Structures are given as structure tokens and as C-alpha cells.
């Protein structure tokens, strides 16, 4: 199982994501700098990490979405490679157009940094296979722009097609229909605001609810 983590100037969760992928796949991921135009051969999972790529200039994720490496990520996604975008990574994926909608400033205007309760909205995706439908899990969030927005037609389509992977169990950021994470129409791209990579070891993190996301994904690909 070969994975890669994209690193932008201003990424700050790239190492956490790399540790989570190393611990679950058994192999350290390749770290790929944003200026690269090609990805290493045979990558099975691409992680787009959290942080503040390019200082969140213009809009969160806007500059990163136009960086050379994202063309390679888009090509890989089109070939069916699994892409996991966490937090700023989710923002980058919407700005790239790999996922619909946009992440706007939190409705309460505050940066929200705490563990939140989530509901697994669809356990049939390749990212949620190790969870039960409607299972309650707890994963940390840390973001200022996590308020998911899309027009009603898009939201209806996401719901109808089972593309909402995770919902917030209570109010967090004003997200439309409590959306915390969505997949693309092919099902191989997931963007989510919560940080599963920050909850992979019960000993160090209190719980390990995020670990099953990685394990389920690895199982689905293998």
C-alpha cells in the first residue's frame, strides 16, 4: 500500500497525516511538495492535509488548488486513486472542483477547536466501511472556514446519492444540512473538516475513532 501526502507552504497537519498513514498502511507515505508536476508511480492513497496553505490568501485553499501538484492529483483522482482531504485539504478539493460546494467562514465567526460528535451518514463508502450506519463517533475539528455551502439542488443530490459521509451531531459551524464530509460522485475522493488523523491512538489521543477511516480505506483498496 503506497501513499502520498501533499505538502503546501503553510500546511501544518502534513506530519500528523503522514503518521496516521504510516501507522495504518505500515509504510511511510511519500511527501510531495506543491511544486511537483507528477506524483510517484503506483500511489494508492493521496492525502491532502490540513493547515493554512499559502496563508489562506484570497480564499482558504484557493491558491493551493491552482498549484502544479493539484493537476497531478486531479488526474490521479480521475483514474480512481483514493484522495483524502482533511480540513484545509477539504477546502483545497472544493476549490479544485474535485468536490462540489464551498467552505465558508464559520457562522459564529469563531475559530472552532474541539472534539465534536459526528454521525456516520453513509457507511457504504470506501472511507467509512469500518463504521456502522448512523454510528456516533468523536473526532476533533480545528477550523475557521468549515461552514459548508452548496445550492439546494446540489445538497439534494448529495443526500440522494448517499454522498454525505459524515454529519455533525450538533451545531459546530453553520454547515448546510450539518455536513462534515462528502465524497465525489465516483466515491474515491473524500473531503472532511474533522481530523481523523488526530484520533488514531487511544493511548495518546483518548480515543481512536479516526483510525477506522484509514483501516477501512486500506481494506477497500487492497
Amino acid at each position, binding site marked *: 500500500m503506497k501513499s502520498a501526502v501533499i505538502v503546501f507552504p503553510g500546511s501544518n497537519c502534513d506530519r500528523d497525516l503522514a503518521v496516521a498513514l504510516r501507522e495504518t498502511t505500515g509504510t511511510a507515505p511519500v511527501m510531495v511538495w506543491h511544486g511537483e508536476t507528477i506524483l510517484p508511480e503506483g500511489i494508492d492513497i493521496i492525502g491532502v492535509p490540513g493547515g493554512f496553505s499559502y496563508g489562506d490568501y*484570497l*480564499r482558504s485553499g*484557493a491558491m493551493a488548488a*491552482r498549484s502544479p501538484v493539484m493537476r497531478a492529483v486531479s488526474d490521479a483522482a480521475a483514474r480512481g486513486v483514493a484522495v483524502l482531504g482533511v480540513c484545509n485539504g477539504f477546502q483545497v478539493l*472544493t*476549490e479544485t472542483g474535485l468536490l*462540489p*460546494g*464551498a467552505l*465558508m*467562514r*464559520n*457562522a*459564529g*465567526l469563531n475559530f472552532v477547536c474541539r472534539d465534536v460528535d459526528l454521525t456516520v451518514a453513509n457507511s457504504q463508502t470506501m472511507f467509512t466501511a469500518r463504521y456502522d450506519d448512523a454510528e456516533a463517533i468523536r473526532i476533533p475539528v480545528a477550523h475557521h472556514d468549515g*461552514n459548508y*455551502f*452548496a445550492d439546494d439542488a446540489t445538497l439534494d443530490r448529495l443526500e440522494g446519492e448517499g454522498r454525505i459521509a459524515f454529519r455533525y451531531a450538533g451545531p459546530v459551524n*453553520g454547515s448546510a444540512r450539518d455536513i462534515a464530509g462528502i465524497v465525489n460522485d465516483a466515491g474515491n475522493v473524500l473531503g472532511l473538516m474533522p481530523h481523523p488523523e488526530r484520533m488514531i491512538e487511544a493511548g495518546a489521543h483518548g480515543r481512536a475513532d479516526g483510525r477506522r477511516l484509514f483501516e477501512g480505506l486500506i481494506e477497500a483498496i487492497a
Partner: protein
Amino acid sequence: MKTRVIVTLKSGVLDPQGKAVHHALTGLGFGGVNDVRIGKIVELDLADDTDPQQIDEMCRKLLANTVIENYRIEQA
């Protein structure tokens, strides 16, 4: 050639910053403020022969996120 791009949130898109500023203006005693929306201005210094279609493309490809924002191009 100085060109301004004015980026605004689409109507119907919640603007929490605008709401907070609206609240603050009311708190300062300014009556009659019906609504506040916050956008941004991008000032471009362009070659004189820049094709207007190219400016439009700049807006669509980067300067505005057309999922949530409208844009307007003004020549100075």
C-alpha cells in the same frame, strides 16, 4: 491599465462577517442600516492590450469562487 475586480457574495449566501458588522453598527447607534454585505476589491495593473475576455477568465479561474461569489469588472 488599472482594472478593479469587485467580488461579492451571492445573494442568499449567508455572510456572517456582514451580520457581525451590521450588529456593531446598530450597537454604535446608527439606525436605518437594513443589511451589510462584505466583499473584496482586487486591483489589477494590466497591459493596455489585455483582452477583456482574459480578465473575465482570471475572475472565473481564480479571483472569484463562482459557487458562492459574484464578480464585477471595472476599468479605472
